[in-house]
């Protein structure tokens, strides 16, 4: 969060409303279906999402990154996808769902996970900025072993 000049003492004075008023900016990550289409939608899966959209709420700069290592992996996709967005400096994750292992990595990094309400990216960013998104509560145990035990 290098864009905002607040000292450690000041942090406690910052309310949630201030954050969403735009006084404090964030880099958010969203799992998306396509990295080339401007009107792509949010991916229903986090770990195996083909791409992540990194969105800076201050500059409104958009950057797509491929989640290729995770999608090609046999197992543990959520972990490697989480490592990727943390390494890219994401401070919040907007996703429809998230597996247990991925959530463990993400929360260890201090990144908050918010639940998206539709598959529309713009709608979700607006809802996030307005402080309307709730933190994701039901972390699922993962979708492992597709196609038989």
């Amino acid at each position, binding site marked *: 969060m290098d864009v905002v000049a607040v000292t450690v003492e000041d942090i406690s004075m910052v309310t949630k409303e201030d954050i969403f008023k735009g006084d404090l900016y964030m880099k958010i990550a969203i799992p998306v279906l396509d990295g080339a289409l401007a009107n792509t939608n949010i991916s229903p899966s986090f770990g195996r999402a083909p791409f992540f959209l990194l969105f800076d709420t201050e500059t409104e700069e958009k950057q797509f990154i491929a989640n290729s290592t995770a999608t090609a992996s046999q197992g543990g996709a959520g972990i490697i996808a989480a490592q990727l967005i943390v390494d890219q400096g994401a401070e919040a994750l907007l996703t429809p769902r998230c597996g247990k292992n991925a959530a463990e990595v993400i929360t260890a990094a201090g990144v908050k996970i918010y639940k998206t309400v539709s598959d529309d990216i713009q709608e979700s960013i607006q809802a996030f900025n307005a402080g309307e998104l709730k933190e994701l509560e039901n972390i699922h145990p993962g979708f492992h072993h597709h*196609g038989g035990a």
Partner: protein
Amino acid sequence: MKIAVLSGKGGTGKTFVSVNLAAVISDAIYLDCDVEEPNGHLFFKPDLTSIEEVYVKVPVVDTTKCSGCRQCVEFCKFNALAYINNSLLIFSELCHSCGGCSLICPDNALSEIDKSVGNVQMGTYKNLTVITGIMNPGEESGVPIIQHLLDHACDKENIVVIDCPAGSSCTVMESIKDADYCVLVTEPTLLSVHNLSMIHELARLLNKPCGVVINKYLNELNPVEQFCQENNLSILARIGFDLYLSVIGAKGLIAVEENRDYQAVFSQLYKQIIKEAGHEAVIDNQR
């Protein structure tokens, strides 16, 4: 001789076939490799003789030595490691115990410890040996338990009946790797044929001779017959759809002990397997 009983689809009657087959073979060893949900013991209700814990090696990190180079994170094919907030996170249930991370670590920060993943229960029922593998809830892979189970049968003269997990994944591959013959259990439906084709491919890949048991059989007009004809697969037995079997099963009873007709069906199935397996052996010798 080891006979593996498998099916691509769950609920076709693997355990039904395995239990009844083992029950008609004298001094057989029944090996329940369906470690996520072992059911055979519900029918045999064996007298337990011993329980053995199954351990695997998993890494632990010495945080005072770890320099955060991430070589282990990149090395792990199963993504069991992550490096977050200057510390290494280990997901031991994803670990396949290859030991690579501790070998590759330039700081000697990783070592291996034993972790229990389940147990193997040995018991007896009449003249049968019943060995059941049970995986701990939450574990990812039953393979180490299956390896432990198969070790108990590796140098035995007895006929071994291996009740495999459903599907065609790693645990099934592990369960049939020592088998001399594979019995593919299927229902006479299109869905079952799809799954049958997958386990048939797996058995062929591992050079295992195999034959088909059609369970819940209604009549000759079913897609399994055609599949078997096209793929030159022998049909070892056709077990008719019979409500009586549901009643027997729900009571936890063994059909061959309750009913002479089923005693005959499974004795005949066993003879057929021996014949087919012998036939295959002859062909193998001729090659």
